[in-house]
């Protein structure tokens, strides 16, 4: 799970979380026994529908202000470490 969530755990943390998450999931067993076959799932309290705004131009956030808060940027873009390996 930690790997999927892009987290790295020490051995000690692994043991702690394994116990704690097991206790929480154990508590959740009370709902596993419920008969919910006839119920549809609720993902959201409101009846969701697509929301559109009129197609008119409006100002967006200032690019410079946004980039000034990034750990690294260059030429108007976010700068990140290398993603791909060396070219052959």
């Amino acid at each position, binding site marked *: 799970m930690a790997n999927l969530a892009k987290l790295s755990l020490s051995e000690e943390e692994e043991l702690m979380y394994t116990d704690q998450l097991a206790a929480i999931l154990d508590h959740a067993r009370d709902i596993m026994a419920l008969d919910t076959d006839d119920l549809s799932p609720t993902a959201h309290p409101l009846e969701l529908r697509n929301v559109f705004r009129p197609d008119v131009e409006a100002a967006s956030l200032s690019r410079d202000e946004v980039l000034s808060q990034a*750990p690294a940027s260059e030429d108007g873009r976010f700068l990140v*470490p290398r993603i791909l390996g060396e070219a052959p």
Partner: protein
Amino acid sequence: MGALIGLGASAIAEMVSSKEISALEVTQEHLALIESHDKNLNSFLQITADAAISAAKEVDAKIARGEDPGPLAGVPIALKDNLVTRGLATTCASQILKGWKPPYSATVVEKVSAAGGVALGKTNLDEFAMGSSTENSSFGPTKNPYDLKRVPGGSSGGSAAAVAAKFAPLALGSDTGGSIRQPAALCGIVGVKPTYGTVSRYGLIAFASSLDQIGPFARSVKDAAMLLQVIAGHDPKDSTSLERPFPDLISNLDKGVQGLRVGIIDELIDGAAPMVGDALMASADSLGDQGAKVEHVSVPAVTYGLSAYYLIAPAEASSNLARYDGVRYGLRVEGQDMNETYVSTRTKGFGAEVKRRIMLGTFALSSGYYDAYYAKAQKVRTMIIDSFQNAYDRFDVLLSPTAPTTAFELGAKAADPLSMYLSDVCTIPTNLAGHPAMSIPYGLGENQMPIGIQVLAPALGEVNMFRVARAIENAAPTITKGLFWN
């Protein structure tokens, strides 16, 4: 202590508007009190004294020019630090947002300022609003102003403690599973979670988007109504915000409770401490005396709220918090490649509880477990909504304790996450249903700590909810215990 400390928001707005006092002196007195006493309470992460003073001067200047200063004229207000403020550090009490200054402000922050409110600073919280005691803040816990050895509740513990300590008459918080109502109860003040969609979430840093809602803290029901009135309303920047006009709470506040049908939720009394149960019954009796029809009601599915919530909220959080990857804002711990950068940044930046919930949510959503956990919890969510609907066919509002106990001691539940989660058992079902609910203080327990009563209403039922809250407030024993500084 200044003479203006302890005045409510409505009194301050009235006196400032009529030039009896200036917004500047109100602001200065509150800042001075915070300056001398917040080191013991740790309710603020950042105090924005200069900005507050210029905002107050602007209110006074408007009044001098004969312009309308707005309904919150000169009223000091504290903002939970998960509401973004342009150019002012916003941390969510996390190391991962260290140094970040947002490029925009939340809609609620803009609305409060346009209404003449004076923001004093940003308040402490459990990291990313995940917790019930404010002990999960990476900047140290906030204390309870009635007993510094106890927690203020959470996650909006800084906002609740600041209002209870009279550092500000008003504050904003956010409530995903009880994070406004539970700390309001533990600190002896009023806290409101409005109907989902009533208040724009634009600029509220997301925890669980289908549950999160912003709401007010105040020391009276009327002041809470006043602030909710200012922040409610449609916002095109939040696609889940409701387009209905928000009703006038203030003019309905004192209509009494004659004929209103009030149901006491049996299932939520069972797990409560006896002193909390006694206070609930006393508040119910007082509603009966004032003409309400009070009966017990069973809402069986609420007992499953906790289990459903601790699958749904972490699932949504694991997705929402994927954005903290060291690319666009805040902390970056550089690794050999991009993947290593993600992992090192998140491992260093997130605290223990946030990691716990991200992993729980990742599990609930993972292939092979999705149907058994996440999908099951969503069906139970439907069951809870149906169970409430049955009760609201017969009742206008429902009553329960806000929290099963009064404020517990710092550290008491820190090592056992499940016992901490249980302190939200009464508040969680409301979030799952998207309904409104609020907490009203009802005297002290035998341990001399405040008790909160929760009033719940169906979606859009705020008018009746506030009428009942006001009636409970009228009957509630006054809290005579002194604060830590007096």
